[in-house]
C-alpha cells in the first residue's frame, strides 16, 4: 500500500488555499483626489460602480413598496377611517374590536380560512403533480414532448381573465358534475399553478444534469431507487420552493377564485377585500390584507431559510442564490 502518497495528497490539497497574490505594485504617480478629478474619472469610466442603476433600482423599490406600507399602516389605525390617520392601535382591527375585527367579523374570518384552504390544497396537489410532470418532460424526447412542453407554458402566458372564463365554461358545460364550489376553485388553482411548479423543478433538473442518475444506475440502482434515493433528495430545494410559490400565487389569486365562486361562502380574501372596499371599508379590511402580506412574506422567508439549509453542502463558496436555483427559467 502506498501510504506515503496519501498524506502527500492531503498536504497539497490544503496547501493551495490562502495564497492570494495581490499584485500591489507601486504606481509611478498618485492621482489627485479633488472632486473635479473624481468626476472626470467617473464620467470617463462608465464601467465602474453603476451609480445610476443603483438609484433607479432603489427608486423602483421605494415606489412599489410605499402603497403596501400605507395599506399595512392603516390596519393599525385607531379610528374607523382607512384614509385619515387617527392614532395607533396594534390589535384593534385584527382581533380586539368585538364586531368588525378580522377575527370577529364572520365574513372576514371565513374569507381568511377559505383562502388558506385553497392555497393549502393547491400547494399539496399541484406540487407533486408538477414535479412528476417536470421529470417526465425533462426525460421525454420527441415532437410530442416539445409540444407538451409548449402547451404546459400556456397558463403562464394566458391572461388570467381568459383562464378564469375558460375554466368557468369548462365547469359549466363539460364537467357539469362539478358545480361552482370550493372543489372547482381548487381545481382551477391547480390548473394554473402547475406550470410554475414545472418551470421551477425543470430548472433545477437541468442544473442537476444526468450525471447523478447515471452514477446511481452505474452503482446498481433501479430506476425507482434512482428517483427515490438520488433525484428526489436533490430536487428537494426546488420542491420546497414550488410549495411556497404555489401557496403565494394561490393566496393572491382573485380572478379564478371569483369565476368559480359559489357565492359568499366561497369568498377568498381578495374577493372580500374587493367587495368591501366598494362599500364602506373599515381598517379591518386593511388588517385582512396585511395578514396576507405577512403570510406571503413569511412563506418566502421560510422558503429562503429551508433552501439555504438544504443546499448548504453544495456550494462551499456560497455562490449562486436561491432565485438562481428556484427559478432556473429555461424558456
Amino acid at each position: 500500500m502506498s501510504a506515503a502518497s496519501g498524506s502527500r495528497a492531503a498536504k497539497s490539497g490544503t496547501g493551495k488555499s490562502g495564497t492570494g497574490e495581490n499584485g500591489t505594485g507601486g504606481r509611478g504617480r498618485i492621482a489627485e483626489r479633488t472632486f473635479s478629478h473624481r468626476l472626470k474619472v467617473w464620467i470617463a469610466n462608465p464601467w465602474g460602480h453603476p451609480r445610476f442603476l443603483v438609484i433607479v433600482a432603489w427608486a423602483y423599490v421605494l415606489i412599489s413598496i410605499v402603497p403596501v406600507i400605507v395599506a399595512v399602516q392603516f390596519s393599525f389605525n385607531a379610528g374607523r377611517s382607512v384614509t385619515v390617520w387617527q392614532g395607533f392601535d396594534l390589535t384593534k382591527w385584527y382581533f380586539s374590536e368585538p364586531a368588525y375585527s378580522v377575527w370577529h367579523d364572520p365574513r372576514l374570518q371565513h374569507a381568511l380560512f377559505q383562502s388558506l384552504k385553497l392555497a393549502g390544497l393547491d400547494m399539496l396537489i399541484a406540487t407533486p403533480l408538477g414535479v412528476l410532470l417536470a421529470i417526465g418532460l425533462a426525460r421525454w424526447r420527441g415532437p410530442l414532448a416539445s409540444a407538451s412542453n409548449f402547451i404546459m407554458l400556456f397558463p403562464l402566458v394566458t391572461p388570467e381573465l381568459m383562464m378564469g372564463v375558460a375554466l368557468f365554461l369548462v365547469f359549466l358545460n363539460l364537467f357539469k358534475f362539478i358545480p361552482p364550489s370550493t372543489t372547482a376553485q381548487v381545481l382551477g388553482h391547480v390548473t394554473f399553478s402547475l406550470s410554475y411548479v414545472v418551470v421551477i423543478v425543470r430548472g433545477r433538473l437541468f442544473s442537476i444534469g444526468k450525471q447523478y442518475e447515471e452514477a446511481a444506475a452505474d452503482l446498481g440502482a433501479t430506476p425507482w431507487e434512482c428517483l427515490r434515493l438520488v433525484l428526489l433528495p436533490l430536487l428537494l430545494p426546488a420542491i420546497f420552493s414550488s410549495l411556497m410559490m404555489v401557496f403565494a400565487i394561490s393566496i393572491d389569486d382573485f380572478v379564478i377564485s371569483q369565476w368559480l365562486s359559489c357565492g359568499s361562502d366561497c369568498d377568498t380574501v381578495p374577493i372580500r377585500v374587493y367587495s368591501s372596499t366598494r362599500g364602506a371599508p373599515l381598517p379591518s379590511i386593511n388588517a385582512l390584507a396585511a395578514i396576507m402580506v405577512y403570510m406571503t412574506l413569511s412563506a418566502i422567508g421560510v422558503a429562503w431559510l429551508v433552501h439555504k439549509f438544504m443546499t448548504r453542502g453544495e456550494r462551499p463558496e456560497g455562490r449562486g442564490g436561491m432565485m438562481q436555483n428556484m427559478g432556473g427559467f429555461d424558456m
Partner: protein
Amino acid sequence: MAGGAVELIDLNKLYGTMRAVDNINLHIPGGEFFSLLGSSGCGKTTTLRMIAGFEQPTSGHIILDGVDMTETPPHKRHVNTVFQSYALFPHLNVFDNVAFGLRRQKETPENVTRRVGEALELVQLTGFEKRKPAQMSGGQQQRVALARALVLKPAVLLLDEPLGALDARLRKQLQVELKTLQQQVGITFVYVTHDQEEALTMSDRIAIMSQGRIEQIATPEEMYENPATVFVADFLGVSNLMDGIASGADTGGRCKVKLGGTFELAAGRGSAAASGKTKITIRPERVRLEPKGSGGENRIPGTVQRWVYLGNAVQLIVGLATGDKIQALMQNSGEEIPYREGSEVAVHLPATALRVLTDTGVPLASEGD
C-alpha cells in the same frame, strides 16, 4: 483475479448522420490497464459510455467475459464508472456515497460497514466517512469516486478522464497511485484520456482514436517508437514530419527516401519497400546536431532558428536546407551546447531513428500537437 475481459465487436454509434464511433473492434484481456487516447470528440467517451450502458450502440456487440451485454441496462452490468465530474451524491456523506452500491445489492449492514472501511482504506481516506463531498478537495473527491466504484469489486472499472479536473502536480501523483491500485486489485481498467503522457505512463496498452476510429492499438513503447500512421506519430509526442519521395529498399534493407529533391536519406524503420510520396518522421530527442560540414550519411545542412531553454533540456528549431523545419531536443548534461540562434549546423537524422510512414490515417488537424 480472473475475468474482466472486454470485447467490442463492430461497434458503431451514430448521432443522426454523425459517426461518433465507427466500427470499433477491440479485445481487452482481463486485468489489463487499457487506455483510450484521443482529442476531444474522437469518440473515446462515447465508447466508454457504451461499455457502461449509458448509450446504446447503433450496431455491434459489447461482450463482457463471454456474455453479450449489449442490451443489458447499466444497473445490471458488472462494470463501474469513475466519472470525470466524479458525480458524488452531494446530499450524502462519504460513507453513504461509498455504501450506495453495496446497499443496492442488499448487503448486510455489518458487511457494508466493513467493505466501505476497506475501500476507504484502499484509497487512504479512512476518517473521512462523515464528510460531505463539497467539504473535500478535488483530489479527495476523486478518491471517493474511486472507492465508490471499487467497493463493488467490478470486473471492469471504467474511468472517464478521472484526473482531468485536477492540477498538474496532483495529477502526476495520482497517476502513479492509480497504476499501483490497479495492480493491487488486479481488475481491468479502461481509461479514457486526452493526455498522452497519462496514457503512456499508466497503460499496459493504448488505443489511439480519431474521428470515431481506432488508429493504432499498441503498448506505450511500441506506440511511441513505431507509430503506425502519420496521425499517431503526430498526436503522440512531438514528431518531425517531413514529405519525401521513397524509392524502395537499399542493400541494407533500409528505405531510400529523397528529401527536398536533393538529399538522399536512409530510413531504418517502417516499410522499407515503400515507394512514391511518403512522410518520414523522427523524434526530436533522436535528432543529432553536428558542426557544420560534418560528413556521413543522413546529414542535412541547416541553421538554428530558435533556441529555447527548457531546464532539463534545450529545444532547438532548425531550418533545414530542404525547407523543412525540424525540432531537436538536446539533454542538459551540464556541457555547453555550442549552437545558438543563427548557428550553421549539420543535422544528423540517424537511419535507426528515421521512420517511413505510408499510412496517413485520418487527415491531420490543421494544427499539430
